[in-house]
């Protein structure tokens, strides 16, 4: 940058100094204004959401988070069932997607024959580009009935002693949402991890192989430890995506109408996002609308937290190992 500044020698310009500087000022001003605008936009989003939620915030306060019932008739609103649903579906999806995604990334970076690498990489990225509403459509018509018919009863009979795997009654249930979210975050974690694995220095890998390690031992001893921080960040990003997903989850999760939370994965449920998507046609009262925006506020806070944690993890691992994980 310093060379640029010394090069802008005003005396040599065919433009008069003032005209040139005026033009520079306009471009720098407009561009800077746009950058400022983006910052203001983020602030405005936070402000508007907080403002919209204010009525519910002042009515329910933090007890909103620990009340289960959502009752528009008696104007009693609480988010606990949705918080629970969001936690269960996101953690479930992360648990299913992470090993699968890491294996895909290892396949693409270490194992795949060359002719297969390009197409499979492109396919995994295409999976990431499929709109959530299409995945949800497939989920509600193809996946959920299949799970109800084959997978849910099998899991129930094998693992039924764990309260998570109860009797399946509806095709639309929490487990279907977990599977749908898994499909959605798998390509995110896989493609970031693949890049991280490809960034591991060849000398380290070759050193391990030269010492007689098998390929798996090389991966376990060199590749995974080297990319650990970045993989954690990728998982956090996938987790954030799972938390914020509204449409596909709403299509397959069924909806929560009861008064008590069920641990059974095969019963219908609701997440923050799916509740918001389900109530798109409006609310019956100002308090209900404000409570919906309170849910949006919780989602917003989660997404900010996820972002900050991911940044911290990336920074720390980059400092420790000198890799640029981005």
């Amino acid at each position: 940058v310093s060379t640029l500044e010394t090069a802008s020698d005003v005396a040599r310009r065919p433009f008069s100094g003032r005209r040139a500087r005026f033009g520079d000022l306009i471009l720098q001003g407009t561009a800077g204004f746009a950058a400022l605008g983006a910052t203001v936009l983020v602030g405005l989003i936070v402000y508007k959401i907080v403002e919209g939620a204010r009525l519910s915030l002042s009515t329910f306060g933090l007890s909103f988070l620990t009340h289960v019932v959502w009752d528009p008739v008696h104007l009693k609103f609480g988010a606990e069932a949705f918080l629970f649903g969001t936690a269960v579906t996101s953690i479930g999806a992360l648990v299913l997607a992470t090993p699968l995604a890491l294996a895909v990334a290892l396949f693409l970076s270490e194992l795949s024959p060359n002719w297969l690498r390009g197409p499979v990489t492109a396919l995994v990225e295409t999976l990431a580009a499929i709109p959530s509403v299409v995945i949800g459509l497939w989920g509600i018509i193809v996946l959920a009935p299949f799970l109800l018919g084959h997978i849910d009863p099998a899991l129930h009979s094998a693992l039924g002693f764990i309260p998570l795997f109860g009797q399946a009654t509806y095709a639309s249930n929490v487990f279907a949402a977990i599977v749908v979210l898994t499909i959605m975050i798998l390509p995110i974690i896989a493609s970031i991890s693949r890049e991280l694995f490809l960034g591991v220095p060849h000398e380290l890998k070759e050193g391990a192989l030269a010492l007689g390690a098998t390929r798996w031992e090389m991966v376990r001893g060199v590749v995974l430890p080297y990319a650990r921080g970045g993989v954690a960040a990728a998982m956090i990003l996938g987790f954030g995506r799972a938390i914020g997903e509204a449409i596909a989850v709403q299509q397959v999760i069924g909806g929560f109408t009861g008064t008590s939370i069920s641990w059974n994965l095969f019963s219908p449920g609701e997440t923050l996002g799916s509740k918001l998507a389900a109530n798109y046609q409006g609310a019956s009262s100002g308090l209900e609308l404000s409570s919906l925006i309170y849910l949006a506020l919780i989602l917003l806070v989660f997404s900010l937290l996820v972002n900050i944690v991911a940044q911290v993890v990336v920074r720390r691992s980059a400092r420790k190992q000198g890799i640029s994980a981005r």
Partner: protein
Amino acid sequence: MSANAVTPLERPADRLRRRKAVNRGMELVAWLAAAVAVGFLGILVFSVAQHGASELNLSLLTKSQVGYDPTVPQGLANAFAGTIVIVALATAMALPFGILIAIYVNEFAPRPIRTGVSLVLDILSGVPAIVIGFFVFGLIVVAHGQSGLAGAFALAILMLPFVARSTIEVLALVPDSLREAGLGLGSPRWRTTLGIVLPQTVGGILTGATLAVARVAGETAPLLLLSSIVGNGTSWNPLHALQTVPVAIFELSESPYPQDHARAWSGALVLILFILFASLGARWLATRNRRKLGRAGG
């Protein structure tokens, strides 16, 4: 490495055999995982193609939705029109804004501001689409009602970090020698930026814009809130609520009637085909552009 310690009962040959077996097992797992990931995509695309092909005909593009009436041939013309209008408007808003941000970040901003702005872009791209929807709902819809314009504004917010970040990336690829040549010939900073640097990045910006369009064309959550309560018939007027393809798929997917499902599938098929072609086009543009920039960099 305690797992690799030789236990006294084990002969070295056995140990090697075991290590090789573990290795082979893990390789098999990775192969299977890749097959599962590709399989998911295969099954998804196959389902959509199989179910969607039956209704994929001309009346899909020429007839509008008229509610549930199996006796009348229906299409999704209104949804396609709305999606085209809303996505075009969103692109028109996000593209110049994003390019300006990228120019500022890459050509003008001092380092701390540069980090700050890219943090803002990160935060913005992490905000869930449904939250953006509620933001625009509070900003516009509460006072003025639903409109295609409100939907376009929300989609533009979703596109903005995408466009800005991809433009920053291509701007950073332009070699400094080009900037120095421009400045050395006496052209002021703004002319160098707009006349020499920016034209080098047109391909890259187009790639980013295409990917952004592909991403938001299927975006449903904000449009449900902002542009979903529509009448019958096709409208191109963004001042009213417009039906869109993703919202139509969402509504039809929750309908109990199989005819509605069939149209949801064909809408999904068209949407996926569009996104696939857009991504392929973007990929092609990107490789072409990289080759060109590589030559310019010498």
